């Protein structure tokens, strides 16, 4: 190796080291996230499409075929114009199902082991000429710079160095499914270098050789044949064929597929790339005619393929070195990304299935085994490229070699069309079509290559066989290979039927999967998942994969819900697909995490699955189906947005609906409750709902429950759901719907109103209280005065006794007030046995403190010994309010009577006055809050509404009527102690 060669090699290695440093810096987080994830960086990374072919070969292509060289980029532009139709659906599939290559994609859709194998082998063989092209371009570019024949050692050294960097770039991570942000940024940088280098050579050609824009214009005018040489081949040559080949290559070449889909970090970036990547290609190709004309004008002593380098040499050695770096950059980026993609394909579709079938998958350190497997494959693929380069005697230009690979890649177009648009396509059709296409490709393009290289000695020519020797070879080979492929694909697809797995995959590809899952999982817990998987992939990998899937779904290791476990299984299958390919992951999951097809899937799971699929599917419902679907969505939305808690259950107590309000009331999210059995809810809800379902009552009012230490009051209502008229298997078969009303806020408001009413009553009583306390106090004062002068012990003792008597009287008054006014000492729910007679007595004592009561009398005629189950304090408030009301309606001298007696399970209490009664028109309104007939400032209008509310709380009722003789009668109907309908939550839960 001479000094010049050593410098070039060192420069090349240094540049690759720089790329590696950029990748490393990105993955370490030294490059800002905004740059790494910028859509333009992603678009630039797709510039890996432009290899040595574009960098060097375009000028030679333009020399031979004029503007035909642009078809290779215009075809890509047309492919990217179809981003929403073709590229976005593929990206969705790749992301959703964690596919890592084109072989994975086809194996996912055309479910057969041979599919992945055939695609991988053909892709490998089809891309070898392309890899060989890169090696040829680099070695020949060295020859241009050193003006010596390149030593084979150089090619070998280039391949060895690239192998090392390919491993460093893409095979450092444990799993292939991880995104390589560093690789994306490094390839984007590499694209920028290529673009800048070519634009600089173009600028030199324009200003350094052609003499500037004006001189160029004059040169063009003086050389119309140069323009004609550019345009004429487009009119006459293989423009359309090349466009079609480039259309396919734009996203089906392994490196393109890898960068567009596998390394995509944000689907939105693809929309930017749809125009930014073609713009990059346009800029890259802008200087090509200039470089061609400048090379011709300057009579550069190289082949037109290397005019780019030859012109740079004219400019100076430094320029030439930079241009050389651009070429190394183009070749190395292509080889690195291509070998990464091919290695993943080979591992997933050649090595792993063979090991799995022989039950030879490593059970320890699977990740390390996969990592080393990929590394060895990278080295092998580059070595194969090198062998191909050495064995083949390339008599063709760079572009001609590359087009062989383009025709190979185009063979995947029919299969891809079937994948995206034709659910009827089968793996038999795909394989038959591909074999047909490959056969024509080999006969039309590879055989001539082998003949030229001396491997085949005969004179066979497929074009001669078809009597088409005069035809363009690319048009001929492309047409016949694609025709054979498409015809066989359609024919064999129609002759065979898609398997159920293929049918399912076809629906997934078209986002039309709406079939409910069938059968229940045999595994019942997360731990069981790990144990089952460990039998195939080893305990360490099984544990890590299950943990990862749990984290992806936000599930806990204690999860036991059948629906969630099914989701976990699906997730595991997808994650394993990213690790080992879709076919093997399906085989492992089917084998280890079995589904019993004879068992019934939980209805909620089926419903949720179908709804999710409908939400995300591409199915366009039409006509009545669309109307019904709109109605279904509307009803579901109504149910979910209802301000009442809704819980519907199947007859076997599986929760189907658990709406938003129910989640808020219970604190249990809908996704945790739906699909579970009632018993899995946990307390207190399991106990409350179970007791209510078992009971005969269709309504339960003011149920007090305790949730996490906080009191809540709820009403419960239930109704049976009639089974639909015609039952199909798996359809809903009736059940129960429970409505839950949260009354906690209302209850707080009622308590507040009652408290305010009590305070108002105390205010009204204040004057009477002062009077009542003032009298005994005056008596006490007089007695105390007398006591000072009293000498007789008997008299003193008598006086003291009288003082004590007066004090007790005051104490009674104060105690009554205290009892009446206290609200917070006992909760409203604190219920005890209440002696109704005593309660009325105390109420009379209280109301008689008021001034207005002095000239009216209150009589307690209630039968003694009546006891009810209730809240003493609140019942006291009822009687105080009713007596106050009666006294205020009475005239001086009138009587107010409280009477009553038991009637069956109830006690009826009447409070009557002898006043003017209530106008008939107002009788219906007296219990309304803030309704009063008194002048403003004299009544709050709350008294009777509080009475109504308290009696309702006690499960009773209150009525009002006018007496024939004048006056009004309020009748309370309260349940006796033994018949109390309200029980607290503990009692209900205990039943």
């Amino acid at each position, binding site marked *: 190796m001479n000094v010049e060669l050593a410098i070039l090699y060192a420069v090349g290695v240094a540049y690759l080291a720089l790329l590696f440093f950029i990748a490393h810096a990105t993955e370490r987080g030294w490059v800002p996230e905004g740059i790494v994830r910028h859509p333009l960086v992603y678009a630039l990374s797709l510039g890996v499409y432009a290899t040595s072919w574009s960098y060097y070969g375009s000028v030679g292509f333009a020399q031979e075929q004029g*503007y035909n060289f642009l078809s290779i980029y215009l075809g890509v*532009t047309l492919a990217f*114009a179809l*981003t929403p139709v073709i590229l976005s659906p593929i990206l969705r599939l790749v992301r959703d199902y964690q596919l890592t290559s084109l072989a994975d994609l086809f194996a996912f859709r055309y479910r057969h082991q041979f599919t992945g194998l055939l695609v991988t082998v053909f892709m490998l063989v089809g891309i070898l000429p392309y890899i060989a092209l890169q090696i040829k371009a680099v070695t020949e570019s060295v020859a241009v710079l050193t003006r010596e024949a390149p030593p084979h050692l150089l090619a070998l050294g280039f391949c060895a160095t690239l192998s090392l960097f390919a491993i460093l770039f893409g095979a450092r991570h444990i799993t292939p499914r991880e995104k390589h942000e560093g690789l994306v940024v490094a390839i984007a940088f590499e694209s920028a270098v290529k673009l800048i280098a070519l634009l600089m050579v173009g600028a030199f050609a324009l200003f350094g050789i052609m003499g500037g824009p004006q001189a160029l214009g004059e040169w*063009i005018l003086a050389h119309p044949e140069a323009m004609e040489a550019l345009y004429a081949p487009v009119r006459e040559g293989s423009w359309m064929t090349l466009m079609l080949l480039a259309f396919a290559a734009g996203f089906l070449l392994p490196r393109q597929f890898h960068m567009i889909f596998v390394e995509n970090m944000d689907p939105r970036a693809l929309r*930017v790339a749809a125009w930014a990547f073609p713009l990059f290609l346009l800029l890259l190709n802008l200087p090509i005619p200039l470089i061609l004309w400048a090379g011709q004008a300057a009579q550069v002593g190289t082949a037109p393929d290397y005019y780019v380098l030859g012109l740079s040499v004219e400019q100076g050695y430094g320029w030439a070195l930079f241009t050389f770096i651009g070429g190394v950059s183009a070749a190395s980026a292509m080889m690195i990304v291509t070998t990464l993609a091919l290695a993943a394909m080979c591992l997933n579709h050649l090595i792993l299935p063979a090991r799995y079938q022989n039950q030879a998958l490593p059970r320890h350190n699977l990740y390390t085994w996969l990592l080393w497997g990929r590394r060895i494959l990278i080295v092998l693929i580059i070595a194969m490229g090198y062998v191909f380069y050495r064995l083949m005697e390339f008599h063709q230009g760079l572009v001609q070699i590359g087009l062989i690979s383009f025709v190979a890649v185009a063979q995947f177009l029919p299969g891809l069309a079937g994948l995206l648009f034709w659910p009827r396509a089968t793996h038999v059709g795909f394989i038959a079509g591909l074999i047909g296409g490959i056969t024509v490709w080999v006969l039309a393009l590879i055989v001539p290559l082998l003949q030229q290289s001396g491997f085949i000695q005969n004179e066979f020519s497929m074009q001669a066989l078809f009597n088409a020797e005069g035809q363009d070879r690319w048009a001929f080979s492309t047409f016949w290979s694609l025709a054979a492929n498409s015809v066989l694909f359609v024919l064999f697809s129609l002759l065979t039927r898609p398997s159920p797995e293929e049918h399912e995959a076809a629906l997934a590809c078209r986002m039309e999967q709406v079939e409910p899952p069938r059968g229940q999982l045999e595994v019942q817990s997360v731990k069981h998942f790990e144990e089952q998987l460990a039998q195939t992939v080893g305990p360490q990998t099984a544990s890590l994969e299950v943990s990862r899937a749990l984290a992806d779904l936000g599930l806990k290791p204690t999860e036991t819900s059948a629906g969630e476990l099914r989701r976990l299984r699906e997730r595991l299958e997808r994650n394993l697909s990213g690790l080992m390919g879709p076919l093997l992951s399906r085989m492992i999951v089917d084998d280890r995490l079995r589904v019993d097809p004879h068992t019934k899937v939980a209805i909620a799971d089926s419903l949720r699955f179908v709804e999710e699929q409908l939400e995300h599917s591409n199915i366009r419902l039409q006509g009545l189906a669309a109307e019904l679907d709109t109605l279904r969505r509307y009803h579901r939305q109504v149910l979910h947005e209802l301000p009442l808690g809704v819980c519907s259950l199947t007859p076997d107590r599986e929760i189907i609906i658990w709406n938003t309000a129910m989640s808020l009331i219970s604190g249990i999210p809908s996704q945790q409750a739906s699909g579970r059995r009632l018993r899995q809810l946990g307390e207190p809800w399991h106990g409350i709902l179970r007791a209510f379902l078992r009971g005969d009552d269709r309504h339960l009012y003011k149920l007090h429950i305790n949730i996490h230490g906080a009191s809540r009051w709820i009403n419960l209502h239930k109704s049976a759901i009639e089974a639909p008229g015609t039952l199909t298997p798996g359809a809903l078969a009736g059940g129960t719907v429970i409505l839950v009303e949260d009354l906690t806020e209302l209850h707080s408001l009622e308590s507040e109103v009652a408290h305010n009413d009590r305070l108002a009553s105390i205010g009204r009583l204040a004057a009477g209280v002062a009077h009542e306390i003032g009298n005994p106090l005056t008596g006490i004062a007089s007695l105390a005065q007398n006591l000072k002068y009293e000498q007789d012990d008997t008299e003193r003792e008598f006086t003291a006794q009288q003082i004590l008597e007066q004090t007790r009287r005051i104490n009674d008054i104060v105690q009554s007030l205290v009892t009446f006014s206290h609200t917070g000492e006992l909760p409203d729910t604190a219920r005890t046995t209440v002696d109704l007679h005593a309660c009325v007595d105390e109420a009379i004592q209280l109301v008689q403190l008021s001034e207005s009561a002095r000239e009216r009398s209150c009589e307690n005629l209630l039968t003694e010994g009546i006891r009810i189950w209730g809240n003493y304090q609140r019942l006291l408030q009822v009687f105080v309010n009713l007596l106050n009301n009666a006294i205020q309606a009475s005239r001086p001298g009138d009587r107010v009577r409280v009477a009553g007696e038991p009637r069956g399970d109830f006690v009826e209490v009447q409070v009557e006055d002898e006043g003017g009664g209530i106008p008939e028109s107002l009788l219906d309104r007296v219990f309304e809050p803030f309704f009063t007939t008194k002048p403003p400032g004299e009544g709050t209008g709350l008294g009777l509404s509080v009475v109504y509310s308290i009696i309702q709380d006690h499960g009773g009722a209150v009525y009002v009527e006018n007496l024939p003789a004048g006056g009004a009668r309020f009748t309370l109907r309260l349940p006796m102690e033994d018949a109390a309908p309200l029980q607290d939550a503990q009692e209900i839960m205990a039943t």
Partner: protein
Amino acid sequence: MDKTLLLFLFGVLLFASPLVGWWTAPGTHVLTVYVLWAVLIGLIALVAYRDER
């Protein structure tokens, strides 16, 4: 989707139909093909931008 298909058909019409004869006719400016290409890219960007909105 409709706009995308229309755009694709426009591209096919411009670059992969007998209309190619129009912009490759003798006397055509050297940059004509690049200008047409740039117009197509501009339309792709426009459709992508409108779809995103």
